[in-house]
C-alpha cells in the first residue's frame, strides 16, 4: 500500500499492462483468421462480407469486433479516387485557347491548371538541362519546330564537362575556399570519368529547380505563418501529417494530378520538402529576441526591409537547417521519383538494384551522395559569406573568379574542339563521357559481393535464418496476435497516463483511423518492423552517443559523421545491405537500423552536451565519479532531449521500413508500391500514407507531451 502511494504512476502503468494482457488472452484467435491479403480486397471471395457506403461496394473478411474491427473506412480510398477523377475530368469545364490547334477547347479547370503548371516546370528543368547537356526544346519553346529546322545551328550544344567542373570549383572557391573547391572539382571529375555525367546532370537540373522552389515556398509560407496566427493554425495540422508521411505515398496522387515525368517529380518533391522548411522558418523567426526587431524598426526599416535585412538573417541558423533538409529531401526524392518517370541517377540506381547489379547501384549511389554533400556545403558557405569593404583591390583581384571562369570556359571549348581530332571516329571524351564508356568499378564490386557470398555464405545464411526464424517470425506473430481492442486500450491508456484526456482522445482518433482502415494487419507488420529497428537503433545510438560524448573531439567527429550520413538519400542505404543479405527482411531491417541510428546518436550527444557546465562542476565538487555523474546527473537531464531523438528515430525507421517495400516486405509499404501500378491507386496510396503518418503521429504525440511535462518538471523548458 505504501508503494502504491509513493509511486502512483507506476501502478497505473502496471494496471494498464495487466488489462492489456488480460484482453490478449481473453480474446481468442478466430478459427477463420489467417494473415490474409489484407481485410479489404476487391476480389470476390465467398468468405467475404460486403457493405455499401455512398453507393460503393466494400468487401472484407468479417471477424469478431473484438478481434479485428470491420474496415468501416474501406470506402475512403475509393471515394478519394472518384473525387480526384471527378475534379480532374469533370469539375468546372471552361473554354481554353489551344495554341497548337488554334481553337477554343473545353477542359476542366483543374486539368488546365495542372497542365500549365507542369508545362512551366518542364520548361525550367529543360532549360537547365540543356545548358548542361545541350538540346533544342528551350529554343523551340520560344520559336517553333520550323524555325529550328531552318536554323539547325541554334540547337544548344551543351557545356563540355570540363567547363562545368571548373565552374563548380571556382564557385566553391568564391563561396568558401580551397577545401570546398578541391572537393567540388574532384566530385565532378569522378562523375565524369565514371561515365555518370548525363544522368548526374539530369538529376542536378531536377534539383536545381526543385530545391530553390521548395526553399522559396517554404520560406514564404513560414513568414506568412509567423505573421498571421490564422495561417499558422491552418497550416499546422497539414505540416504535422506531412512530417511523418512516407514520401512514397505522395507519388500516386501526384501521378493522377500531374502525370508522369520530371515535372511531376518536382511538384512532389516540393510537397515533401516544403513542410520542414516552413516549420524551421517559423521556429527561427520566433526565436529572434524582440529587441533586435525593435532595433530594426528604430533604424527606420520598412516592413520589407525588416523581414529581408533583419529577421531572416538573424534567424539564418534555423533557416539553414531548413535548407539542409530541403536538399536532403530533394535528393532522396530524386531517387524515389524515378518510380514515376523522373530521369537521372535515381532511375539508374533503381534499375541497377532491380537487376541486383550492386556495383552499378553503388556507383550511382555514390554520385548522388557526393552531389548532395557538395550542394549542402555550398549552400551553407553561401549563407555565411562575408564582404570585405576595406581591401584595396585591383580590378583583377576583384574580378578574378569571373576571369578564371571565362578562361576555363575558353580552354574547355578549345579542349573539346581539340578532342574532336584526337578521338576521331569514337567519342569525344573531352566533351562528354558517355554513360557506358567511362571507367567502371561495377565489376570489381560485383565480384567482391560474389566473393563475400561465396566465402561467408554459410555464416550469413545461418545468421539470417536464426534472425528470421527465432527473432523476427515470433515477434511478428506476437504483434499479429494482439486483438484490436487490446491495442486500442493500450494506446489510449498510454495517452491518458502521459497527457491526460486530451492526449488520450488524439491517440484514440489516430489509432481508430488505422483500425478502421482495411490494412490493420499490415499496419501491425509495419509497426513490428519499425519497433525492432527502433529498439536496436536506440541501443546502438545511445551507447555510441554516450561513449563519444566522453571526449570533446570524438563527439564533434561523431556529429560530423551524422551530418554526412544524413545527407545520403535514403535509398542509398539499401545498396550495401542488399550486397550482404540479398532480398530478405533482414536487409530491410539492417537498413532501417543504420538509417535510424543517425538521429538516435545525434540527439544523445546533443542532449548530453546541453547539460549546463555549472552542474558538472557542482557534481565534481560533490565528489561523484565519472560513472555516477553520467547516471545521476547527465542522463536524467539529457533524457528529454534524448526522447526527442527517439521520436526522430521512429520517424526515420518508419520511412525506411516503407522504402524497404522495394526489396519486398509484407507491410503497408508493399501496398503503396502496388498502388503505383493500380489505376485506382491514388486513393489507396494516400490512405496508406495517412496510416503510416498516423502511426508516427501517435508516438510523436505521446513523446512530445511527455517531454514537455518532464522539461517543465526539471525547469529546463
Amino acid at each position, binding site marked *: 500500500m505504501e508503494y502504491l502511494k509513493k509511486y502512483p504512476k507506476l501502478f497505473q502503468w502496471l494496471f494498464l499492462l495487466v488489462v492489456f494482457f488480460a484482453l490478449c488472452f481473453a480474446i481468442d484467435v478466430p478459427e477463420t483468421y489467417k494473415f490474409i491479403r489484407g481485410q479489404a480486397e476487391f476480389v470476390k471471395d465467398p468468405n467475404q462480407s460486403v457493405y455499401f457506403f455512398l453507393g460503393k461496394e466494400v468487401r472484407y473478411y468479417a471477424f469478431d469486433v473484438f478481434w479485428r474491427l470491420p474496415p468501416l473506412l474501406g470506402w475512403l480510398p475509393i471515394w478519394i479516387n472518384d473525387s480526384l477523377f471527378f475534379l480532374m475530368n469533370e469539375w468546372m469545364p471552361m473554354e481554353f485557347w489551344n495554341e497548337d490547334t488554334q481553337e477554343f477547347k473545353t477542359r476542366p479547370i483543374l486539368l488546365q491548371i495542372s497542365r500549365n503548371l507542369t508545362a512551366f516546370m518542364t520548361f525550367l528543368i529543360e532549360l537547365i538541362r540543356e545548358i548542361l547537356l545541350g538540346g533544342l526544346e528551350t529554343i523551340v519553346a520560344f520559336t517553333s519546330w520550323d524555325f529550328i529546322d531552318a536554323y539547325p545551328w541554334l540547337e544548344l550544344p551543351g557545356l563540355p564537362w570540363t567547363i562545368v567542373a571548373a565552374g563548380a570549383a571556382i564557385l566553391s572557391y568564391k563561396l568558401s575556399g580551397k577545401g570546398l573547391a578541391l572537393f567540388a572539382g574532384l566530385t565532378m571529375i569522378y562523375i565524369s570519368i565514371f561515365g555518370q555525367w548525363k544522368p548526374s546532370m539530369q538529376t542536378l537540373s531536377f534539383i536545381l529547380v526543385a530545391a530553390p522552389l521548395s526553399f522559396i515556398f517554404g520560406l514564404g509560407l513560414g513568414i506568412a505563418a509567423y505573421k498571421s496566427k490564422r495561417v499558422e493554425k491552418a497550416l499546422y495540422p497539414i505540416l504535422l501529417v506531412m512530417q511523418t508521411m512516407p514520401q512514397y505515398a505522395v507519388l500516386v496522387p501526384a501521378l493522377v494530378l500531374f502525370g508522369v515525368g520530371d515535372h511531376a517529380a518536382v511538384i512532389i518533391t516540393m510537397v515533401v520538402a516544403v513542410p520542414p522548411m516552413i516549420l524551421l522558418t517559423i521556429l527561427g523567426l520566433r526565436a529572434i529576441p524582440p529587441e533586435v526587431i525593435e532595433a530594426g*524598426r528604430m533604424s*527606420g526599416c520598412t516592413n520589407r526591409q525588416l523581414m529581408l535585412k533583419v529577421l531572416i538573417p538573424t534567424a539564418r541558423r534555423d533557416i539553414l537547417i531548413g535548407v539542409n533538409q530541403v536538399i536532403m529531401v530533394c535528393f532522396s526524392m530524386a531517387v524515389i521519383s524515378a518510380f514515376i518517370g523522373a530521369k537521372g541517377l535515381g532511375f539508374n540506381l533503381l534499375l541497377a538494384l532491380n537487376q541486383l547489379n550492386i556495383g552499378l547501384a553503388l556507383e550511382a549511389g555514390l554520385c548522388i551522395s557526393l552531389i548532395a554533400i557538395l550542394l549542402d556545403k555550398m549552400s551553407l558557405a553561401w549563407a555565411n559569406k562575408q564582404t570585405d569593404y576595406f581591401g584595396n583591390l585591383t580590378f583583377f583581384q576583384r574580378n578574378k573568379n569571373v576571369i578564371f571562369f571565362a578562361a576555363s570556359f575558353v580552354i574547355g571549348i578549345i579542349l573539346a574542339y581539340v578532342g574532336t581530332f584526337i578521338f576521331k571516329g569514337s567519342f569525344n571524351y573531352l566533351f562528354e563521357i558517355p554513360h557506358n564508356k567511362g571507367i567502371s568499378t561495377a565489376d570489381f564490386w560485383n565480384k567482391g559481393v560474389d566473393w563475400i557470398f561465396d566465402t561467408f555464405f554459410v555464416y550469413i545464411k545461418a545468421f539470417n535464418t536464426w534472425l528470421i526464424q527465432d527473432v523476427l517470425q515470433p515477434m511478428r506473430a506476437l504483434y499479429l496476435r494482439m486483438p484490436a481492442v487490446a491495442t486500442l486500450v493500450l494506446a489510449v491508456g498510454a495517452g491518458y497516463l502521459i497527457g491526460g484526456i486530451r492526449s488520450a482522445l488524439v491517440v484514440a482518433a489516430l489509432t481508430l483511423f488505422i483500425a478502421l482502415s482495411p490494412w490493420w494487419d499490415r499496419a501491425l507488420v509495419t509497426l513490428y518492423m519499425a519497433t525492432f529497428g527502433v529498439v536496436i537503433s536506440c541501443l546502438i545510438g545511445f551507447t555510441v552517443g554516450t561513449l563519444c560524448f566522453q571526449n570533446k573531439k570524438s563527439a564533434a567527429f561523431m556529429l560530423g559523421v551524422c551530418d554526412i550520413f544524413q545527407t545520403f538519400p535514403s535509398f542509398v542505404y539499401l545498396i550495401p545491405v542488399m550486397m550482404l543479405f540479398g532480398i530478405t527482411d533482414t536487409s530491410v531491417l539492417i537498413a532501417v537500423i543504420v538509417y535510424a541510428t543517425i538521429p538516435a546518436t545525434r540527439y544523445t550527444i546533443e542532449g548530453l552536451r546541453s547539460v549546463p557546465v555549472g552542474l558538472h562542476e557542482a557534481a565534481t565538487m560533490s565528489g561523484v565519479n565519472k560513472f555516477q555523474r553520467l547516471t545521476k546527473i547527465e542522463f536524467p537531464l539529457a533524457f528529454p532531449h534524448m526522447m526527442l531523438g527517439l521520436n526522430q528515430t521512429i520517424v526515420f525507421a518508419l520511412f525506411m521500413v516503407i522504402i524497404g517495400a522495394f526489396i519486398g516486405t509484407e507491410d503497408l509499404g508493399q501496398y503503396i508500391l502496388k498502388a503505383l501500378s493500380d489505376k485506382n491507386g491514388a486513393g489507396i496510396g494516400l490512405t496508406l500514407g495517412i496510416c503510416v503518418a498516423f502511426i508516427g503521429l501517435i508516438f510523436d504525440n505521446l513523446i512530445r507531451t511527455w517531454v514537455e511535462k518532464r522539461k517543465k518538471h526539471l525547469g529546463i523548458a
Partner: protein
Amino acid sequence: MSETVIKCESVYKIFGENAKKMLEESNGNVDAKTFQEKGCIVGVNNASFEVAKGEMLVVMGLSGSGKSTLLRCISRLTDATGGKIFIEGQDLLELNNKELIELRRSKMGMVFQSFALLPHKTVVENIAFPLQIKGTKTEESINRAMEMVKLVGLDGRENYFPRELSGGQQQRVGIARSLAVEPDIWFLDEPFSALDPLIRKEMQDEFLRLQEKLQKTIMFITHDFDEALKLADRIAIMKDGIIEQLDTPANIVLNPATEYVRKFTEEVPREKVLVIEDVMDASSNDNLGDLKVSKDEIIENVAEKILTQEKIVAVVDSENNIVGSIKPSKIIDTVFGGRKNGS
C-alpha cells in the same frame, strides 16, 4: 526657455483586449487593480511631461514599473492606448507608417539593454545599417560608420562580429549605430544594465563625454538610482506606471515627493549629488569670511575647505558676484543630519 522636443500629454498604455474601451470608460482615472481584475495590465498610467532640446531626462524605476513601456510609446514601437505625444510639435500618433519611418530615419536613435546587434553583420556593417536602410551609398555609409567606430573607440575592431566582442564593446557598437544617422533625439533603454560595475562606470563617463560633445535630447531609462543621479538633468521616478516625481536630482534628494521616492534617496550620499546652491543661504549676510566658493560646485569637492573656516563662507556665481552664504555647520548638517531626521 529652450524649445520643447518631446511632449507627452496624459499618455496611457494598457495591455489587454478591451484596453481602449475600458480606458475611455474610466475617464482617465485608471486604477491598476480594477483593470487587472478585468484582464488588463496597466503599463503607463497618465504620464505627462516635456523634454527640452539638449536636455537629458532619466526615467528611473524598478523592473515592471513601466519605464521601458513609456519609452516604447514615445518611440512608437508600441502604440499608446491614450493621450498625445508630440515630437518637435508633430503629433506622433497621427503619423502614418511612411512618415513614422522617415522620422526614425532622420531624428531618432535608440540603444538597447541587450545591445540588439545583428549577429550576421560585422561591427562596421552594424553601424552602417541604419544608413544603408535609408539608401545611403555603400561607400559613403561605410566611411561614416568608420567615423563612428573611431568616436566610440573601437578602431581596429571594425571587422569583428558581435559575438567576438565583450559586452562593453558590443554596447559601444550599439551606441555608434544609434548615432550613425545623427539623430536629434536619443533613446537609451537601460544601456549599461547588462555590464559589470567597472565597465558600467567607464561607459557612463564615456557617455557623458559624448553628450558634452553632441548635445542630443535624451531619454535615458535605468533602474539604477545612482546612475540616474550621475547622468540626469532631470529624473522621473516611476512606480506601477505612474510618474511619482519628476524633478532635478537635487530636488529629489532634498524634497522627495512620496514615501516611495524617499526610500531611494535615503542611502544617497548627498555631498556627491548636491551643489552649494542647493544648500546655501540666499539672504545676504555681512559677516563673510575671505573664502569664496562657486555656487555650482559639488559639496563633496569643497567641503574640506569650508569646514576649516570659522567664518561664514561666501557663495559666488560665475561672474564672481556674491549670491549667498553658507555656514560650515550647514555642511555637517547636510551630510550627516538630514538623513537621521528623515527630512
